[in-house]
């Protein structure tokens, strides 16, 4: 019976059916199914399939985003119900946001989706976020990586402010910093002391893996 449920969960993620995924995990909890098994046997299998469909060109980005959203919705119900020491296995934890003064959302959202689809736990703090809001989020969720996005040439320097604030908070040794956005260059990333930079959302995954020493 659980096997069918896990398959249905995977299917809900593959088809990007957020409400179905929520209903299925609610049903699973009611029936006393192990929440960690729901994650590993259902959701993770589903998102891996979504990733493969995207890689082979069958799926486009909106399908990837909807799959990741279905998985996230189900996780939000399952994670508070994990039993005892149970923890979801993730590649790493990432805090993502767009810098202060910048309302551009889409690039950061795409990076978040790609990371989610590749096994990272992503905490998206939104747009127009000050350096201290990044720091608070890093502390709160014990992040391995922080990713900041800026689309305007004038908000670029907010990246530097974020790094300075991370240093001031004594977190620099603990968290890797990735930056991105159309005007960002690898030279700029080096200059301000960021650890990683990627040209686009897809290559951001490889950079994130490399930063925390996860296998490619």
């Amino acid at each position, binding site marked *: 019976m659980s096997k069918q449920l896990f398959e249905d969960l995977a299917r809900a993620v593959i088809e990007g059916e957020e409400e179905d995924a929520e209903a299925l995990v609610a049903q699973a909890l009611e029936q006393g199914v192990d929440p960690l098994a729901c994650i590993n046997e259902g959701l993770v299998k589903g998102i891996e399939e979504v990733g493969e469909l995207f890689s082979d*060109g069958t799926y*486009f*980005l*909106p399908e990837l985003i909807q799959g990741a959203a279905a998985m996230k919705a189900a996780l939000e119900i399952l994670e508070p119900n994990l039993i005892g020491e149970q923890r979801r296995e993730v590649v790493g934890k990432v805090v993502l946001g767009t810098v202060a*003064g910048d*309302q*551009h959302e*889409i*690039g950061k959202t*795409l990076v978040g989706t*790609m990371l989610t689809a590749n096994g990272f736990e992503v905490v998206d703090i939104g747009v127009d976020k000050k350096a201290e809001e990044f720091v608070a989020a890093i502390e709160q969720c014990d992040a391995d990586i922080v990713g900041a996005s800026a689309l*305007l*040439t*004038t*908000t*670029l*320097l907010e990246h530097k*402010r974020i790094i300075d604030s991370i240093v001031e908070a004594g977190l620099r040794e603990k968290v890797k910093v990735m930056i991105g956005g*159309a*005007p*960002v*260059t690898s*030279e*700029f990333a080096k*200059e301000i002391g960021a650890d990683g930079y990627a040209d*686009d*959302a*897809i290559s951001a995954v490889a950079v994130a893996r490399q930063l925390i020493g996860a296998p490619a």
Partner: protein
Amino acid sequence: MPRSLMPALTSSEIEHIHERSLDLLERVGIDYQTPRALEVLERHGCRVDYGRTWASLPRKFVEWAIEQAPRVVRIEARDPARSVVLDGRCAHHTTDSQGTRALDFETRERIASNEESLRRGILFADALDKIDIVNVMVAATDVPAHARVVRHFQIAFELTSKPVRTGVLQPEQVPFIVELARAATGEDRFRPIFSTVHCSISPLMHDGPATEACMELARLRVPILLHPMPLAGATSPLPPAGTILQHNVEVLSGLALFQAVAPGAPLVYAAGPAQLDMVSGNYANSADGNAMRLALVDVARFYNLPVNLGGLGTASSSLDAQYGYEASSACLLAYLAGADEIFSMGLLDSSQTLSLEKLVFDNHLARELEIMVRPIRIDEEHLSAELIERVGIGRHYLKRPETLASLREEYVRVWPPAGSDVLALVHDEALEILERHRAPAPPESALASMREIASQADRELAAAAKDAT
């Protein structure tokens, strides 16, 4: 008038877009991100909510605003002879805008664009004859962010006497830019020798400080290019029609505000939507993108506004076949659609990287494509029927005095010349511009004033930036 395309949209389709636009502006409204916009709009009868910086624009108000916007817009230059009039009679090219990288001419390496990259880019834009409007093509990323916009204007006013254009991002920058223009022209009265660009943030939002800056500039009669950049499927609906509609709503939201601020303020309608590449997640220009932009030209014409349309841009990272295809097809369409401005020369990598050779190549392409759509004179003199009769059958025209007489006027030289390596050719031309072209700088006294204004801006804007944090 050059040759033209059949309209992309019927008049009833345009009416439909217009009606839905008015409806959305009233029912969904716009987030202007600044109370200063709301204060003006409220005085014009708009419903506003200061808490969420939102306004609903009633139909009658938007219709009134559309009537205020002038059809003919003069884009002034420091040298009045180089001013440009957007009156629908011909297309004017602009350089690309705000890249952050440059292809180093000597080392061929990609570098973060700096002040020297920008100086070279502006110098080339001044030298090349098909460039009419000099957009600040790359950011001087070695200049501190707070001082950068003012510094861009200072460099541009120094190195070209053509019209200058770039975005002004904060209202505090405006007085310095006005003073720079006054110093550069040497005139007591402010003459707007620049125009600016206002990008909305799709969907249905404006940037607060940039909007406040444009409100100031509208009062000063500085032309504003209204430039939404929705990405179909990501920040606007996937179907081209939906992106066209949302794009138009965003243009009208800017138009209505700036006309409310200063009735008659000169505006240009940029037809600039693109797509999200659903595979790479990057900004992309597909064939559909060109189709959307052409349709928006018809919408702009419906409002009787000058229109700016993409042309010589490319996603390619070099001057290769992809560049040739993308730039030629879009630029040809822009000419045929009757754009007033064609955007944009000089940058590779989807408007990221300045290439001096591309500026030169683009300049040639612009000339070639313009000639393609140029009307052919059909009259008795040019039909040359008498000459054909005189030469008769089986002879040639090479020795005829009539051939010699019309050679300078009628003959179009072949470009690139037969047997030439076009990349070597543009490289040599670029080298020649670098070595020989002298910027038409204002007098030394004006340059000294401009330096003083820029350094004052640096100090004051740095202090303001510090206070803000």
